[in-house]
C-alpha cells in the first residue's frame, strides 16, 4: 500500500524518455567495449599464429646514412630497447666480415653466387635445429635458409634456367661448396641446408661459427649490428610502434600493421566510448532529476508518513526497487541486443572465414555490473538526501 501511495503521482513520460536515453547509452558503451575486446582478441589469436612476438628492426636508410655508422645499433641503443616494458629480449644480427661465395654442381651444370651470412642466438630461431650445430674443426657447415628462398628458386629461378625443381628434403641432402676469403687466401668448406626458417628472412649459420670466422678469417672483432631481432610481449601494442617511429627504426613485420590498426581502432573506440559515456551521463542525470521530481511530487505523502513514524529507510526502498527493476531491464535488454548482434556478426564473419570469439566478453559483463552499481549508488544517495530534507532532518536537498 505504501508503494501505491508513493508511486501514485509518477509521470511515466519522462521516465520513458530517460529510460530510452539510458538504453541507448548503455547499449552503445557495451557495443563499443565488446567490439574493442573482440578486435583485440582477434589480433592476438592471429599473431599467435604467425610468431607475433618477434620483430626484425633496422634503422631507416637515407641518403646520408647509407655509408655512415649511424645505420648501426650502438650498445646503448640496444640496451634502451631491451629495457622497454613491452620488450622481452633483444638479439643482434651478426654478419660475415669476409667475402664468401657458394657453388653447387648438378651433373655438368652448376651455379655459383656471392653469399652473405647472418647469425642470431639459436634460442630465437624457429624450426627444427637438430642439425644446426657447429664446433671448431667441423668440416661441414650447417645453414638455415628462409622457406621463401626455396619457393623463389623452385618457382622463379629453376624454370627460367631449365633447372629441376627440388623438394626441401632433396635440398637438405645436397652439399654446397663454400669459398671463404681469409685475407686473400681462399678457404673451402662444405655446407648443407640444415633446415628452414619462417621467422628470419636471411641465410643463417650458427652464431658460434660466425663469431669464430669473423675473428679468424677477417681478423676483426664483431661489429655493431645493423639489424636487431626483438622479442616483444604484444606486437599489436601501439607503444612499440610509437617507439620505433620516434627513433626512425623500421620493421617490415606484418604485426606492426596490426599495431597501426589497433591504434586506429583504439582511437575510434575511444571516441565512441566517450560519446556513449556522455549519452549515459545525460540519461542518468535525467533519471536523477526525475527521481528528485518524484520526491517533490510526493512531498506530502513522504512528510506525512515520516510524521506517522515511518522510518526513512522504509520510504527509500520502494523508490530504489522501482529504479533497480528498471535498470535491470535496461541492462538486460542492452546485453540481449548485444548478444543477438554478436551472434549475427559471428555468423556473417564466419562466411568470410573470420572466427570471432564466442559469446560476450567478461569485460562487458563487468562494465554492465559497474554501471548498475554506480547508478543505484548515486540514486540511493540522492533519494536518501531528498527524504531527509522532506523530513526536516537536513536544511537543503542539494
Amino acid at each position, binding site marked *: *500500500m505504501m508503494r501505491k501511495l508513493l508511486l501514485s503521482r509518477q509521470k511515466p513520460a519522462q521516465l520513458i524518455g530517460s529510460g530510452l536515453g539510458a538504453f541507448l547509452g548503455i547499449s552503445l558503451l557495451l557495443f563499443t567495449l565488446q567490439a574493442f575486446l573482440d578486435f583485440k582478441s582477434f589480433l592476438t589469436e592471429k599473431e599467435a599464429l604467425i610468431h607475433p612476438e618477434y620483430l626484425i628492426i633496422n634503422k631507416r636508410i637515407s641518403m646520408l646514412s647509407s655509408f655512415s655508422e649511424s645505420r648501426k645499433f650502438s650498445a646503448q641503443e640496444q640496451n634502451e630497447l631491451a629495457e622497454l616494458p613491452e620488450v622481452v629480449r633483444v638479439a643482434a644480427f651478426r654478419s660475415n666480415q669476409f667475402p664468401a661465395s657458394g657453388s653447387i654442381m648438378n651433373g655438368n651444370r652448376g651455379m655459383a653466387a656471392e653469399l652473405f651470412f647472418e647469425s642470431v642466438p639459436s634460442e630465437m630461431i624457429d624450426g627444427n635445429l637438430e642439425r644446426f650445430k657447429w664446433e671448431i674443426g667441423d668440416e661441414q657447415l650447417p645453414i638455415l635458409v628462409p622457406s621463401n628462398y626455396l619457393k623463389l628458386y623452385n618457382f622463379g629461378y629453376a624454370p627460367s634456367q631449365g633447372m629441376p625443381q627440388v623438394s626441401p628434403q632433396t635440398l637438405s641432402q645436397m652439399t654446397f661448396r663454400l669459398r671463404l676469403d681469409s685475407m686473400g687466401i681462399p678457404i673451402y668448406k662444405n655446407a648443407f641446408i640444415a633446415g628452414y626458417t619462417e621467422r628470419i628472412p636471411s641465410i643463417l649459420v650458427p652464431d658460434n661459427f660466425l663469431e669464430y670466422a669473423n675473428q679468424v678469417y677477417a681478423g676483426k672483432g664483431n661489429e655493431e649490428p645493423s639489424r636487431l631481432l626483438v622479442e616483444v610481449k604484444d606486437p599489436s601494442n601501439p607503444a612499440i610502434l610509437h617507439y620505433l617511429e620516434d627513433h626512425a627504426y623500421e620493421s617490415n613485420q606484418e604485426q606492426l600493421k596490426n599495431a597501426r590498426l589497433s591504434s586506429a581502432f583504439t582511437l575510434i573506440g575511444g571516441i565512441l566510448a566517450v560519446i556513449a559515456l556522455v549519452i549515459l551521463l545525460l540519461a542518468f542525470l535525467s533519471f536523477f532529476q526525475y527521481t528528485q521530481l518524484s520526491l517533490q511530487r510526493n512531498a506530502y505523502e513522504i512528510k506525512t508518513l515520516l510524521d*506517522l513514524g515511518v*522510518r526513512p529507510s522504509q520510504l527509500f526502498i520502494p523508490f530504489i526497487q522501482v529504479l533497480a527493476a528498471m535498470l535491470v531491464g535496461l541492462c538486460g535488454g542492452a546485453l540481449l541486443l548485444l548478444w543477438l548482434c554478436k551472434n549475427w556478426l559471428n555468423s556473417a564473419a564466419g562466411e568470410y572465414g573470420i572466427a570471432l570469439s564466442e559469446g560476450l566478453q567478461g569485460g562487458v559483463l563487468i562494465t554492465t555490473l559497474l554501471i548498475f552499481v554506480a547508478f543505484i549508488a548515486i540514486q540511493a544517495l540522492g533519494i536518501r538526501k531528498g527524504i531527509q530534507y522532506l523530513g526536516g532532518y537536513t536544511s537543503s536537498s542539494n
Partner: protein
Amino acid sequence: MRIQLKNSIPIPLKGSISADSNWNKELEFISPKTYLICAGSGKGKSSLLHMLHGSRRDYEGQIRIDGEVLSEFSPNKLAQMRAKKMAFVFQDLRLFPQLTAFENLNLLQNIHGLELGTKISEYAERLGVSDCLPKPCGILSLGQQQRIAILRALLQDFEFLVMDEPFSHLDEENQKKAGQLIDEVLKSKNAGLVMSALSENAPLHIDERMFL
C-alpha cells in the same frame, strides 16, 4: 513516558510573549495524566505540540523525552518514538486523499505490523463513520475526515496521545462520542494526553489545564 521542557520557546515567538505565559519556563508532561493546552489563536499551541513531536526544530531551550534530548534523536529513533510512543492528531488532519478511509486506517497496521483485528470497524461504528470506510478520504466532509484522523491515532501504539484542536469540525454530539472513545482508549493503554484547544472546555477527562 515523561516529557520535559526547559526554557523552551519557538524562535518566531521570542519577544512577543506575555509575562504570565508558560513559554520559556519549565514544563513537564507525564503519562498517564491528561493535559489541555489552552490559548487563543497565534499563541503557539500547534508549535508546542509539534515541538514535542520533533517535527518542529526552530526553538530555543531543551526538550527531553524520558531523559533524552529530543533534538539529538536520529531519524530512526524519532520514527520509533512516533510509531510506538506518541500518536498525533494533526490540525490539518494529514490523511491521504487518494486512499479510502479504511486504507488510511489500515496503513499503519501494514507499515508497523500492528494486529488491529476488528478494531477499525468497531471504532468507526462508535464515531459514526462506518459508511465512510470504503470511500476515498478526499471526498469526505471535514468532520468525517477529522474523525478518521482521530481513529488513525487511536489505532496505533502510544504512551502519549497528542491532539492539535481535534474537535474543531465536530458538532457537540460527535465531540462527546469522540471524547468517550478517547477516554476509554487512554485508560486501556494507560496512556497520557496532551491536547490543544481554544477554550478550557473539553469533551473528555482532563487532569491539568495549561495556558500559553
